[in-house]
């Protein structure tokens, strides 16, 4: 497997090195195989690509800007800090790239209903948005705990015409929302597309979702080269399932840039280093000694996922990327730091990437660092007001 190109196509069985695959009930295997064929066909079709590009431009607002952060860079002691501004996309995060791609693909496959899981609500809002745009029915599963934490996003999804259903089993967070979405799909696979929100799940999702986010990496590379005359020394992104990281890493996979995926300390699947199989994929997984999946614990609902996309597991195993973790306290500091120095309130998820940069500043002085600012912080302001006080 060592001759696989870095961040290229997986094997026909959906393997990135030892990771990935298609561990789903038989009912869903034909749907995954059909999706693989449909995606290959669409991705090779200039008409599909043009339709998606038009939506990404005219509807989602791409390309997103690259912002140089002079004040924060100075405060960190002299880091050339660049932010890829996915927070400025329609719906407020990078998630829109993937859902527009999948919603168009679903339409092409003749499926008029989308089902999705969501953690913080960003993917759910993005899916509800795409469904509204394309006239598709939409059901979003969200953990009961997350529905309480992110009630504004629940309202947004309903406003957009989606049905939001609580995942009331297990830890009642993102992993349970994935379980419920898969159970829904098992029963409705004939007319429903599962619009999975990250680079996880069974093949072809990890690959397909990364390809839909590749635009992030392509733009960022061009923008960095235009600004710096070179690729950045370090590329940093937060990792729950790992979709924004996969998107931005893909732009620099063949460059000299160091790739850093930052996990929450309470949900460090790669950091924990235990391989496992769940939600259709073989990857690293937070679990007990018997293989029961453990709850992730993070201040960020969007990163509360005990697994990680299989390509990240492979990038870690092969040494192409590293996956350190940061604590909630470091994240809270970084959330305030960016707000105060640059006038940008980040979502708690990319605040993880910023927290790593802040912590490792001594080794980053004099270097160029690109951070994927994957989403904006509006959704987190109420939660942070509780943490910090009014």
């Amino acid at each position, binding site marked *: 497997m060592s001759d696989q190109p870095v961040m290229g196509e997986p094997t026909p*069985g959906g393997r990135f090195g030892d990771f990935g*695959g*298609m*561990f*789903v*009930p*038989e*009912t*869903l*295997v*034909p*749907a995954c195989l059909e999706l693989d064929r449909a995606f290959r066909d669409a991705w090779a079709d200039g008409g599909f690509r043009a339709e998606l590009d038009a939506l990404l431009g005219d509807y989602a607002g791409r390309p997103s800007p690259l912002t140089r952060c002079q004040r924060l860079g100075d405060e960190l002691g002299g880091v050339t800090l660049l932010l890829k501004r996915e927070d400025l996309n329609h719906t407020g995060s990078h998630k829109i790239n993937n859902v527009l791609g999948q919603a168009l693909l679903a339409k092409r496959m003749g499926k008029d209903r989308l089902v999705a899981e969501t953690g913080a609500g960003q993917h759910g809002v993005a899916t509800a948005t795409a469904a509204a745009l394309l006239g598709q029915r939409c059901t979003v599963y969200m953990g009961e705990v997350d529905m309480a934490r992110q009630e504004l996003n629940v309202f947004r999804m309903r406003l957009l015409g989606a049905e939001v259903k609580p995942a009331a*089993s*297990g830890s009642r967070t993102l*992993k*349970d929302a994935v*379980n419920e979405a*898969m*159970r829904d799909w*098992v*029963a*409705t*696979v*004939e007319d429903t597309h599962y619009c999975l929100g990250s680079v996880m799940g069974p093949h072809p999702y990890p690959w397909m979702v990364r390809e839909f986010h590749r635009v992030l990496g392509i733009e960022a590379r061009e923008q960095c080269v235009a600004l710096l005359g070179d690729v950045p020394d370090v590329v940093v992104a937060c990792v729950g399932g790992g979709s924004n990281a996969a998107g931005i890493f893909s732009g620099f996979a063949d460059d000299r840039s160091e790739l850093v995926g930052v996990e929450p300390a309470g949900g460090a699947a790669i950091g924990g280093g235990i*391989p*496992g*199989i*769940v*939600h*259709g994929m*073989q990857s690293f*997984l937070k*679990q007990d*000694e*018997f*293989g*029961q*999946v453990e709850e992730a614990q993070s201040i960020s609902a969007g990163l509360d996922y005990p697994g990680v996309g299989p390509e990240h597991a492979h990038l870690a195993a092969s040494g192409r990327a590293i996956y350190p973790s940061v604590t909630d306290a470091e994240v809270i500091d970084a959330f305030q730091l960016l707000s105060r120095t640059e006038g940008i309130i980040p979502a708690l998820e990319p605040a993880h990437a910023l927290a790593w940069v802040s912590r490792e500043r001594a080794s980053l002085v004099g270097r160029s660092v690109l951070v994927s600012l994957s989403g904006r912080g509006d959704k987190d302001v109420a939660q942070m007001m509780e943490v910090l006080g009014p």
Partner: protein
Amino acid sequence: MSCPGLEVALRRRREQGGKSLVPYLTGGLGDWTTILLAAADAGADAIEVGIPFSDPVMDGPVIQQANDLALAAGATPPGILDALSGLDAGVPLAVMTYANLVYRFGWERFASRCAAVGVSGAILPDIPLEEVGPWAAAADAAGVATVLLAAPTTPDDRLAAICERGRGFLYAVGLLGITGERDSLAASAKVIAARAKQVTDLPVLVGVGIGTPRQAVEVCEVADGVVVGSAFVRRMVETGSPEAVAELVEEFRSALDAG
């Protein structure tokens, strides 16, 4: 007393002109080993023992709840296998669980532990044909039958390949959906059973959505037998009583025997 393996027992039932009844019971839930023995005595042809997993994506609310109760009571894969050791049920035993518990245990270790405690089959619904290689090799070597599933969505060529690789019996999923009782038998149940019977000599048992003796009889107009889960597990959860579960086994048994 030694008992025949899973496939032998189910084939024998078919050769005798009968229909197989395989109740699913949640391992680690209450007095489950006593319940298992009672179900075997009451006329089950084999017993499927569920090993609870934290994220059972193929299972509906009844089995999910039973899983949670068993896990809260401390059920573990090695604990359940240990409890089966020396249990003289007199009918073949199969385990049903999910890939990660077996992967974590180790494919080979799990297969040999199954064989050592008298488990002759395993059903792992999230390991489809594409991924079954490492497990099936370990199971074959240990003499444990790898039961594969076929679904209403499975196309013909794939169905043939599944039947070719499957051992023990073919688990035909009766409907599009997760485990649980339904008001009536889905039309897809007899269709998948008939399609499977055309391409395999393996016993074809329908599971998922078979909740009453009447539904079992109806699907067995075509199928060689049934796997019944939620109806038994619900009774385990609600009564905890070996007699109550045995009574339901008898109802299914007599209905199937009467045809």
